[in-house]
């Protein structure tokens, strides 16, 4: 246990407990929207872009983010934002290729993509890698949160982790992806607002932005770190390790993030969400999580904090200096929000992989959807439990913590290469994919004991640090080389078997998703009053409404409660039927669809063409 530096008051504790109760209640509120595995995993694929954007940012910011980036900001300055401001490099790869592939191919998990694109052994390997990655991260997040709360509030590390894990597990088990999205929306707003408030308080304390800016040394004001020194933090390393390998891993193989983007009502909305995250929310999040470090440096320069303040404690030191009782509790709640929004996503993601890639194919085949929904809920609880069990393990054996980090560093570049080659190269073979994963991980593993292998690609970085950042470039190069060589000596899958799974076949995937020719030129949405008719899966509109939407019978439509602030909570996808001859404003929907989408008869609803 680390030495306690307790700064919280009773009021701060009260705010944190109130926050816990509020999130728990809010998350559990959405349980009734989860009736199937599709609801539990993807929230019924019904949500608007803005809900997904805010909740995804909450997931991005982890429990350690405030502490870690404040420490980096204190030591090196504003270049601590590099990790959050380099996602633009992969935005085209994600938006134009990977996102439509996973959305239209209806894969539920990354391992499932590996089986359909390659073979069963690649799926098995991807399943193992992703589960170790996610369960390990649940444990690490819980442990780091416990350490932070212990330092700030004096609470026990283990029991802090238990409290957070229990709250998250219960609401995820009840409401699945819908609860995750809704609670993360609140938590995303809270952590950004709290971080920015801390910055505003710091600027006021110093006497304004000009004073703050003048107090920072020039190197602390730059947006990017020094090119290749010191070995502990440099531009080249962050570019390759975070900007390329981690970003692709985060958006392409992180099951939690994929589920979030698969929960959007359409690829169009998923693209909007991603662009909003990238251009608006990530710069705000970067400022929110790192500014305590910059303020700390300015305070030290102004003589307001001791120069020997430990970087790891700078966040607490700055927050304690600026915040009165109550406000400090809010900042701590933001820290907990960062943790809970990451943990709930991981728990939900583990349940998807557990059911989709282990339970259904290997343990219980051909059962009802209700059965698999129960299994998903049990796995969610188990994931939280395993995360809790890992906390004392990480606390007692630092080598396991380090080993998990080394494992992730070893498998991330090969996974990234396997996904990229699989997506962009039709010729890339199943055998080559397996060799890329296995050979790439071995090559990276060997480099941990023989770092001199990385030197030719190290961009002049001092080898004293063991090339911990530049290993990513080496791993990408080694795995890529293995993948390319093995591809040329093995047989690719027939093109007919990878339709919709690789670049150049995405349009075929869209047509398969719709089950017909895609409507390329939809018109404007139509707002009308919902009315019920007998039958199953029927959605019919007046000819004038169909004309306004430029829709034809057979087009895939999205029908949602017209109140936009609901974000699609009450909505359905359905195929347009033949136009009806009743009043123009009437939208006719069958009872099963009304129940599925929690639609309200008599209320105004908005209909639009999706495909």
């Amino acid at each position, binding site marked *: 246990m680390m030495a306690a530096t307790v700064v919280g008051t009773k009021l701060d504790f009260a705010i944190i407990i109130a926050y816990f109760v509020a999130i728990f209640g809010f998350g559990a509120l959405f349980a009734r929207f989860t009736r199937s595995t599709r609801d539990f995993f993807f929230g019924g694929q019904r949500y608007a872009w803005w809900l997904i954007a805010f909740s995804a940012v909450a997931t991005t910011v982890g429990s350690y983010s405030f502490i870690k980036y404040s420490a980096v900001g204190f030591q090196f300055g504003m270049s601590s934002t590099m990790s959050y401001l380099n996602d633009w490099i992969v935005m085209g790869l994600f938006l134009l290729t990977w996102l439509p592939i996973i959305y239209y191919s209806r894969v539920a998990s990354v391992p499932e993509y590996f089986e359909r694109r390659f073979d069963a052994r690649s799926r098995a390997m991807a399943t193992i890698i992703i589960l170790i990655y996610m369960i390990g991260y649940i444990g690490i997040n819980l442990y780091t949160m416990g350490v932070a709360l212990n330092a700030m509030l004096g609470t026990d590390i283990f029991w802090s982790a238990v409290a957070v894990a229990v709250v998250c597990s219960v609401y995820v088990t009840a409401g699945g992806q819908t609860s995750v999205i809704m609670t993360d929306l609140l938590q995303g707003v809270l952590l950004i607002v709290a971080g920015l408030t801390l910055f505003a308080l710091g600027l006021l304390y110093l006497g304004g932005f000009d004073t703050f800016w003048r107090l920072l040394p020039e190197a602390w004001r730059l*947006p990017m770190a020094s090119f290749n020194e010191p070995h502990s933090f440099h531009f080249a390393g962050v570019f390759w390790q975070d900007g390329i390998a981690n970003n692709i891993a985060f958006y392409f193989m992180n099951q939690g993030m994929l589920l979030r983007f698969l929960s959007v009502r359409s690829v169009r909305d998923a693209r909007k969400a991603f662009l909003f995250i990238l251009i608006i929310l990530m710069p705000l999040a970067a400022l929110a999580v790192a500014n305590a470090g910059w303020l700390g440096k300015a305070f030290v320069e102004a003589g307001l904090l001791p120069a020997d303040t430990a970087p790891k404690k700078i966040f607490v030191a700055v927050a304690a200096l600026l915040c009165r009782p109550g406000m400090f509790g809010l900042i701590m709640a933001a820290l907990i929000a960062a943790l809970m929004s990451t943990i709930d996503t991981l728990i939900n993601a583990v349940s998807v992989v557990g059911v989709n890639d282990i339970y259904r194919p290997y343990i219980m085949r051909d059962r009802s959807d209700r059965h698999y929904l129960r299994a998903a809920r049990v796995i969610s609880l188990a994931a939280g439990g395993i995360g809790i069990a890992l906390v004392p393990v990480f606390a007692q054996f630092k080598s396991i913590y380090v080993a998990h980090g080394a494992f992730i560093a070893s498998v991330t570049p090969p996974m990234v290469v396997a996904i990229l080659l699989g997506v962009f190269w039709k010729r890339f073979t199943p055998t080559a994919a397996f060799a890329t994963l296995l050979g790439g991980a071995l090559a990276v593993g060997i480099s941990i004991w023989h770092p001199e292998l990385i030197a030719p690609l190290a961009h002049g970085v001092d080898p004293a640090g063991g090339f911990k950042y530049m290993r990513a470039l080496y791993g990408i190069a080694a795995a890529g080389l293995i993948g390319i060589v093995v591809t040329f000596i093995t047989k690719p899958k027939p093109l007919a078997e990878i339709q919709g799974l690789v670049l150049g076949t995405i349009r075929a995937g869209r047509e398969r998703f719709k089950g017909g020719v895609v409507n390329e030129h939809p018109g404007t949405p139509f707002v009308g009053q919902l009315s019920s008719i007998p039958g199953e899966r029927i959605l019919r509109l007046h000819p004038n409404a169909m004309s306004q939407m430029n829709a034809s019978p057979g087009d895939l439509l999205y029908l949602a409660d017209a109140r936009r602030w609901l974000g699609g909570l009450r909505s359905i996808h359905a195929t347009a039927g033949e136009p009806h001859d009743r009043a123009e404003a009437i939208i006719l929907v069958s009872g099963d669809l009304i129940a599925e989408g929690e639609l309200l008869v008599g209320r105004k609803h908005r209909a639009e063409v999706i495909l």
Partner: protein
Amino acid sequence: MLAFTHNWGCLLYALIVGGVIFVASVIAPIAADDVRLSNRDDRRTVFVLIVGFLFYAALFLIWQLAAIGRIGGSR
């Protein structure tokens, strides 16, 4: 005065190497006919992507100039 590699080298490296990856990732799906500029949604997405890239390039450039005191006046 900081070294060129610290001031401008990193920015050029990020925009050139990252830019090549970004441009290739936009051109490849257009060339493969997965993205059609005749489609309104596809056209808008490509447009916003390019605006996003230019936004980040401008952000880093202005930030860099402000940091070294070329704009804003402080050193």
